[in-house]
């Protein structure tokens, strides 16, 4: 994947965020083919998750959030659907979906700061998954906004590393994702 496909350039930051779910055949190169459809049309992928299919290991699901001109999105979805290895591509923006994201955050904190971190962790129903004398690793799951808020709060308290999964999403009820 090219970095340009993932980097958030200032020119697209004002566009609304779209969440697209793409069901693909597990063929070599399929991720590149998918990313090229976005990159060629100036779309930036902000997050991208690939997960294996449940019933059939021959298929995977790509969930991606991206920004760009709305008029281009219809074309992107159609061009994705045209790829031989793409079974379907759906824009879930505005749909009834369950969405979540997970993050692991390493915080260097001692003494009073540590107490403050733990308070925030408890309030956010996050979990400490690694407890060392000079640092904590916190695991937090939830919608993107919740994670953003949590990160804002703990950032000044000594965040040194963070890994986020990117948005995960599934359609509600019997709707297909």
């Amino acid at each position: 994947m090219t970095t340009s496909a993932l980097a958030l350039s200032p020119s697209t930051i004002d566009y609304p965020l779209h969440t697209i779910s793409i069901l693909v055949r597990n063929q070599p190169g399929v991720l590149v083919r998918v990313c090229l459809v976005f990159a060629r049309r100036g779309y930036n992928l902000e997050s991208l998750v690939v997960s294996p299919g449940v019933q059939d290991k021959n298929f995977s699901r790509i969930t991606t959030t991206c920004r760009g001109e709305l008029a281009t999105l219809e074309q992107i979805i159609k061009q994705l659907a045209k790829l031989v290895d793409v079974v379907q591509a759906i824009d879930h923006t505005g749909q009834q979906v369950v969405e979540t994201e997970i993050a692991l955050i390493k915080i260097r904190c001692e003494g009073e700061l540590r107490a403050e971190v733990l308070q925030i962790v408890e309030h956010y129903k996050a979990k400490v998954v690694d407890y060392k004398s000079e640092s904590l690793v916190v695991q937090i799951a939830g919608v993107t906004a919740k994670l953003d808020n949590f990160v804002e709060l703990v950032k000044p308290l000594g965040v040194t590393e963070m890994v986020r999964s990117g948005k995960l999403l599934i359609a509600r009820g019997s709707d297909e994702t």
Partner: protein
Amino acid sequence: MNQPIANKGETTTAETPDRIPTGGEMLIRCLEREGVTHVFGLSGGAAMPIFDALYDSKIKLILTRHEQGATHMADGWSRATGGVGVALVTSGPGATNTVTGLLTALMDSVPMIVLCGQTISPMLGKDAFQEADVTGITYPVVKHSYLVRNTNDIPRVMREAFHIATTGRPGPVLIDLPKDVTSGPCTASMVDEINLPGYELPSRASADKLKEAAAILSRSRRPVLYVGHGSVISGAGEAIMRLAEKLRAPIVNTLLGKGATPEDGPLHLGMLGMHGTAYANKAVADCDCIMAIGARWDDRITGKLSEFCMGAAKIHIDIDPAEFNKIVRPDVSLSGDARAIVEDLIPLIEPAETKDWLAQIAQWRKQYPLKYSKKGGLKAQHVLDRLDKLTKREAIITTDVGQHQMWAAQFCLTTKNRHWLSSGGAGTMGFGFPSAMGAQFAFPDKQVWTVVGDGGFQMTLCELATASLHKLPVKILIINNHYLGMIRQWQELFYDNRLSGADLDGNPDFVKLGAAYGVKGWNIKRAADIDRVLKAAIAYNDGPCIVNAEVVKEDNVFPMIPAGAALKDMLIERPKRKLAKPTGST
């Protein structure tokens, strides 16, 4: 050791029934099974097992002098026949030389198979000799591609590749074949079934949408049928003619739509767009309904999009739904095969009166005919006009890209489907000559002309050797103005005549060059030579021949809609005033 050299066809190893075939042999059997009779290619180390297997096959190998030529020959074969042309090349530079040919085929929806040798699997990604990430390099220029990792996948991949290349919106498929995969044993048997869950073919247009489109057409008093390459590919011409007759509607076609319907018909206005006829463009600018039949509202057609057919209802027929709303938001979109849709539409239509409309068009036709002056030196238009008459519109004509292409499109009317082959979307210089060779290999008894410029011809003229060797009677008409003419035209019109990179000083004597390859040739230096030379070329059938027409150096193609300008701003002839630089892409 003094081993005798085996002659082709004398060895019998491949016919031994019990022996397990190699991947390469299986590959060739798959090609035979798909009905392939010719393969255009250039050999190399990584492709040796495939070339070795070809040794025993009935498939004719046409050894080209450059891989780009091989792809354009395969492309020309496909365009002329409606079948699938096959190119076979080796790894690394052999494969990268096919990229232009792949783009050319993709942009014009041409089915083609490109087989590439590749380094052995264990060396992939290790910078082996002549290794290149060919699938990676070609992702954006193929309809689909394969890197085959297992010899037993060959029959399945080959069946899928032909299926994908030829169905739906056709396009090129590339297959990258590591040498160990083609030399290893293949125990898999032929595959008939196709299992491609992500590859859906468009269903037939719904009855509701057909009714909607028919209603719009029925109330239209100034309709235009806009015919593109999709009509050629689907063979929709006869149906379109019936529709046009019923509606009493004029037909315009794109550069690639030439020949879908006979261009010399009374309802036909010729080519529209940037260098289309004035009356075609005036009709499009003034219509109240335009129906695209296998055409994609290319920027050469629409000009300034915000002013294109503003008041007109738009109907779009395309086999590729991704074309709807891409450039133009149609009132009705009908996805599916052009011919089937037009046939379905005909009985639903109750045409309105279009007499006034046709009268108006007839007046435009009279007022703004295509014209050129026979005075002031040899004119390309004059040569092409005579070619049109002397070939009686029976020949297959291919072109290169540039001024000569536009003049040929204007003056050589195409009356038969698949008799006009030109690189439209990609605008690939170097396409003309090898694509004509592909067409000639497919139809050895047909008259095949290629109209080329002195610039583009030099990009692939090494194939003179190939054509000469096979005594291929392709007739090469060089419109030689010692310039990259279209560049010069733009620089004259829009860049204060500051000629930069337009002059082709140093051109060879093309007739002498031909002679070096054993190719017959003539010069046309004045108008009086035209008929004599063209007739001699038409009569000559003992291999390829070159007609070098030394036309006036500084002539321009008109009409012209400057890139990004509206159709109404069309220039009928050279304007006196200075022109602003065009805003459109190219």
